[in-house]
């Protein structure tokens, strides 16, 4: 074939010369949308930016922010975004030094990421001295500062206390004639609630389980460990996972979730299917921090009037009857200008009595500002919880709320402990050992590699080794006694 023949056949086999119809469509879209985007630009509002990832908070803050914007300078624009997006942007911003929003409301996991490097490079402004000089430090519940305190310096305003109780299906429990005031310890709890598990379903499995707990519910496990008096990190930030106490706790967790005497099952939080299971009464009792009450009210409204709260059963007689779960703080970015104005804004947003009341009324969250705890709102009966004055109940537990670590490795530690629980569960099923006594030794053995891994991670971190105070923990004792300034900005 000659060149021209090939050319002709080539052209004809490709149809008309040029570009396929679909491609033209895309080109058309490109042109039209470019015009549209240029003509309709996305406005970046002037002023300072604030990011938050909690929808509830966003809604609560909106009126206060609006009021601020009307009367004071500078203007603050609040943006709601998903936790993952906030985390990604915060890290990208801090790690590359490009900064991000001026005000950041973040929860524990994300905030701790800022503490991985040397103290001077923490992206949030050190608020310790301001809090002390303005007398705010004494007004706020001391334990609430711990997740935001690194090496003795406080980097955020605390949002909450987050005490924990046990929420249970009062309708089912009282119908069975069980008196919860008899329950003091976890052993009492299991003993008294066991009759509720008598009913079987079509497969011969219990229709109900008395505790909402599973090997992979890392945060619930963390709450139980802290309640039992165990810790994940010491004050210097060194991991303390493999302790006898933690071993006993996870042995108990595995005993509860495995074997023929299993009393716990999974009805996951934050999941539509988990909510359905709770509604069906698949689990009787769930571990409930104050904010969880609000989640239940919004997501399982059908349980109104059927649930009640009781202090957590203690691990030993006279032991702690509460724990802690979650936490949020408001931090000011070092790259933000107008620190004084933003500080005023932050205090106004977080510490005012109006906000405290709104926080409880709309979010069931107890404020960390101790001086506001005598507000009658906390004594109001709550219809969802069968008329209990749950606010007061939570506040009464506040003094016993355990401390939370601020280590950036905390979430890894939780996962590591979770892995240990899973491994212990496998061991239990394979060896047929389902009692706490039998499992304890193996539990310690399961926790050891978790601890080792964390130690290795920490040891690799040259910055924590070099740090001014030579540790990476909360340094709370230093905070309590400190009067002089720490590291300069």
């Amino acid at each position, binding site marked *: 074939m000659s060149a021209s023949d090939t050319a002709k056949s080539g052209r004809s086999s490709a149809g008309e010369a040029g570009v396929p119809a679909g491609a033209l469509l895309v080109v058309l879209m490109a042109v039209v949308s470019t015009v549209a985007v240029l003509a309709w630009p996305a406005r970046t509002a002037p002023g300072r930016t604030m990011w938050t990832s909690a929808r509830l908070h966003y809604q609560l803050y909106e009126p206060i922010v609006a009021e601020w914007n009307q009367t004071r300078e500078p203007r603050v624009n609040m943006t709601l975004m998903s936790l993952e997006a906030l985390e990604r942007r915060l890290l990208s911003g801090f*790690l590359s030094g490009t900064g991000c929003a001026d005000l950041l409301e973040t929860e524990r996991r994300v905030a701790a990421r800022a503490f991985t490097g*040397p103290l001077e490079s923490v992206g949030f402004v050190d608020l310790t001295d301001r809090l002390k000089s303005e007398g705010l430090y004494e007004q706020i519940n001391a334990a609430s500062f711990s997740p935001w305190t690194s090496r003795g310096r406080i980097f955020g305003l605390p949002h909450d206390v987050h005490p924990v109780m046990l929420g249970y299906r009062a309708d089912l429990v009282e119908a069975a004639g069980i008196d919860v005031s008899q329950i003091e310890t976890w052993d009492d709890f299991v003993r008294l609630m066991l009759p509720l598990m008598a009913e079987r379903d079509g497969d011969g499995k219990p229709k109900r389980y008395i505790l909402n707990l599973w090997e992979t519910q890392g945060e619930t496990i963390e709450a139980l460990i802290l309640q039992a008096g165990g810790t994940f990190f010491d004050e210097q930030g060194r991991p303390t996972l493999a302790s006898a106490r933690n071993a006993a706790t996870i042995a108990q967790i595995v005993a509860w979730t495995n074997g023929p005497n299993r009393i716990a099952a999974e009805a996951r939080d934050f999941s539509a*299917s988990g909510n359905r299971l709770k509604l069906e009464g698949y689990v009787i009792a769930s571990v409930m921090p104050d904010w969880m009450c609000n989640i239940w009210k919004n997501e399982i409204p059908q349980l109104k009037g059927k649930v009640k709260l009781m202090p957590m059963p203690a691990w030993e007689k006279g032991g702690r009857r509460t724990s802690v779960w979650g936490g949020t703080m408001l931090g000011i970015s070092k790259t933000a200008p107008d620190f004084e104005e933003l500080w005023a804004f932050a205090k106004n947003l977080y510490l005012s009595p109006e906000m405290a009341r709104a926080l409880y009324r709309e979010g069931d969250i107890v404020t960390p500002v101790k001086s506001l705890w005598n507000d009658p709102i906390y004594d109001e009966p709550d219809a969802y919880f069968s008329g209990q004055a749950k606010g007061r109940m939570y506040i009464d537990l506040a003094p016993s709320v355990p401390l939370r670590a601020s280590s950036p490795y905390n979430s890894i530690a939780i996962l590591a402990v979770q892995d240990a629980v899973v*491994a212990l569960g496998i061991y239990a099923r394979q060896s047929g050992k389902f009692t706490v006594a039998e499992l304890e030794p193996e539990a310690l053995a399961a926790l050891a590699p978790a601890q080792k891994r964390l130690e290795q991670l920490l040891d*690799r971190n040259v910055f924590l080794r070099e740090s001014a105070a030579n540790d990476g923990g909360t340094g709370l004792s230093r905070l309590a006694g400190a009067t002089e300034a720490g590291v300069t900005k």
Partner: protein
Amino acid sequence: MATPRRAAWGFLAPFFVLFALFTVYPLARAAVLAVQQTYGPGTERFVGLDNFKALAADPLFWKAVRNTTVYTTTTVLIQLPLSLLFAMMLNRPGLRGRAFYRLVFFSPALVGVVFVGMIFGVIFEKRTGLLNQFLHAVIGWDLDFPWMQNYVMPSLVIATLWQYMGYNMIYFLAALQNVPRELTEASEIDGAGPVRRFVSVTWPSIRPVATFVILLSVIGSFQLFELPWVLLNSAAGPDNRGLTVVMYLYQRGFETGDLGYASAIGWMLGMLLVVCAVVQRRLSRGEESV
């Protein structure tokens, strides 16, 4: 001839300029990062090959490599023959509704990973999930079967199968349609059964496409991250059963801020993929003499 050579560089220029700007420079930065430990701006320490040494001794990294390799081999060994099978079925002459089937099977490749993660999250749920409910009703399967806790890899393989079977099927369909008609007909007349026909006529024709598809699948599978991340709710699953190499890179880089370590992981992955590509090249060159 001066003009064509200049023209060649002219054609390549836009690509190479942008490539240098947005791929090569960050890549060089990543190389520098791999020999450092850093936790933010101005806090960099040169640590030599420490990151790589730590990586070699890191059991989690090797677990990730194991998981990813298992996933890749399973996916390739299951998905590709299946895609080929379906392509052959669709290639049957006289089959009605070919375009319809093509659309249905290809559609899963159109949706984003977030959707795949969401829907398979609902499908694999314990007790209330669609799969367990269906199997329980039909064959008395355990309603509490923990797909996403104990059987993470199988769940991922199934989800990927749904997502990409049709995509690879289209490649194979295109290739099958290029198998010379005369050859297949000739072998039919010769009395060859379907298996003989496949082995001696079809397979040699589509072999280049098959190797291409295999290489693409292997490279893509080794970079698995978003699907398990979405499915397991931004985590690696119990006992890190769903941990993949890229997920570990992301965790190390963005959860502890150790960009140096993360870059080291990235480089290891890159080298692994280079090895795969070279192996594939060797194997396919061996047959190109045909």
